[in-house]
């Protein structure tokens, strides 16, 4: 039997070790956030946020078209991905207990882990090849495919949180099952689903790999779905791997812009979720 003292020493040591692990995780986070803000803040200006990129060799210019391109493609992706994702989630929650439901759920879980670059290839094969052109549509398709499985699982979870009592209350009023699902159950879960949608949009805005050979890039403004389109993430990548200091600076500034966009979406989602928690379930 070990002495009381050495046991306490081990306990203290392990506690310290766990604390160290926490620090190990948080130091890089602090470093990333600090450096993105420090290196990026200097270069951000109204011109940077609204101008086109400068041609190679010239200084100045901005990422206006890339911001517009990211918003455009995430919007297009949401148009298709959000209804399908939520729909699949409602299916899983309402009729997902049979073998088909279990298969769909398993597929959604597994699809959630498919690398985004693979999805890029799929969108390339489905859209770029037949259209003979890189396009915003192809980029958006890739983002939508990435959105659907995560959104489906999140929606299912939100709906399953709705107490059975509410569903029964509605059914006991003689409301048909489908009306009950839409007007009572889905409506009650709506806050949580909106949160999940915002998080999915934030994730989509941060994707780079599936855009590399679908939307490609574009030096100019583009809001046509059948044309190559610039995005903030691909722009950051191109600037970061370039040999020019000026471009590196732009990469930091664009990264700050991206982080602010993603952060805003995340914070809104959190704020919505937090508000719901405080009001509490009935």
């Amino acid at each position, binding site marked *: 039997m070990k002495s009381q003292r050495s046991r306490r020493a081990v306990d203290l040591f392990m506690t310290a070790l766990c604390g160290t692990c926490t620090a190990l995780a948080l130091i890089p986070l602090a470093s990333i956030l600090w450096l993105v803000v420090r290196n990026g803040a200097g270069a951000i200006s109204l011109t940077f946020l609204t101008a086109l990129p400068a041609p190679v060799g010239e200084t100045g210019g901005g990422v206006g078209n890339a911001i517009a391109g990211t918003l455009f493609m995430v919007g297009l992706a949401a148009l298709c991905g959000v209804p399908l994702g939520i729909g699949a989630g409602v299916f899983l929650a309402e009729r997902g*207990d049979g073998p088909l439901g279990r298969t769909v759920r398993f597929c959604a879980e597994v699809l959630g882990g498919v690398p985004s670059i693979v999805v890029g290839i799929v969108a390339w094969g489905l859209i770029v090849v037949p259209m003979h052109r890189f396009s915003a549509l192809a980029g958006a398709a890739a983002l939508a495919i990435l959105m659907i499985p995560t959104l489906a699982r999140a929606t299912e979870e939100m709906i399953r949180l709705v*107490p059975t*009592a*509410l569903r*029964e*209350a*509605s*059914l*006991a*009023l*003689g*409301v*048909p*099952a489908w*009306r*009950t699902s839409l*007007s*009572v159950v889905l*409506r*009650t879960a*709506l806050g949580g689903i909106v949160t999940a949608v915002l998080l999915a949009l934030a994730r989509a805005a941060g994707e780079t790999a599936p855009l590399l050979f679908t939307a490609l890039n574009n030096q100019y403004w583009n809001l046509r779905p059948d044309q190559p389109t610039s995005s903030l993430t691909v722009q950051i990548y191109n600037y970061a791997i370039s040999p020019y200091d000026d471009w590196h600076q732009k990469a930091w500034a664009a990264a700050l812009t991206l982080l602010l966009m993603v952060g805003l979406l995340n914070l809104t989602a959190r704020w919505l979720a937090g508000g719901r928690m405080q*009001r*509490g*379930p*009935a």
Partner: protein
Amino acid sequence: MSERSKLEVRHLTAWFGKTAAIKDVSLSVPAHTVLAIIGPSGCGKSTFIRCLNRMHELTAGTRVEGSVLIEGEDLYARGVDPVFIRRRVGMVFQRPNVFPTMSIRENVLAGLRLNGVRGDHASILEDTLRRTALWDEVKDRLDESAVRLSGGQQQRLCIARAIAVEPEVLLMDEPASALDPIATARIEELIGELKQGYTIVIVTHNMQQAVRISDDTAFFYLGELVEHGPTKQIFTTPRVPRTEDYVTGKFG
């Protein structure tokens, strides 16, 4: 049984998988009376009333045999749609379950709106809230969220919601069990008034409550109907010894 019986149950047996939760129960409820269902917990009281508007079958693996007649029509006959049954047989649950995303007004009218029933919703709203003695308390905040009402108010709102669709029978599953004594008293008072317009079946674990509010009482034990008769008789001169044991507090 009586010609005037609103609700008649014949040889009702309800199954959860392979176990029968209700065994061969027959009884009838005359119109405009209150029937109290009493018995120790787990005796099948809740299951019994959930069979009366076919809510029982919503649970997976359940099955019902026998028949339940409302004005002579069998709820369990082939081709009968449970959705229509539930508009004629309303239900109030143990815990208040107001719709949290809806206002007080929307809650009361939920049944009408979701069923697409047209009519003078404003007067139905006021009338229903008056009958549940809520009108004076909520008339100035009809558009506030229903979640902000007290527990007792929420339960009365649930009753208002149930009677807004004008059912003929009202089922209540221990409607006061989650409420404080004052709120409970109001609900009991309300049940006495609602009797004028509805036929009520109420499950209660509280024998005092059964005595105060009901005309008839049915005592259930282990899924069987042990004794059924006028409330006064059940509590003063029960015929079956087990009933006597229960109402005098020897078990349960």
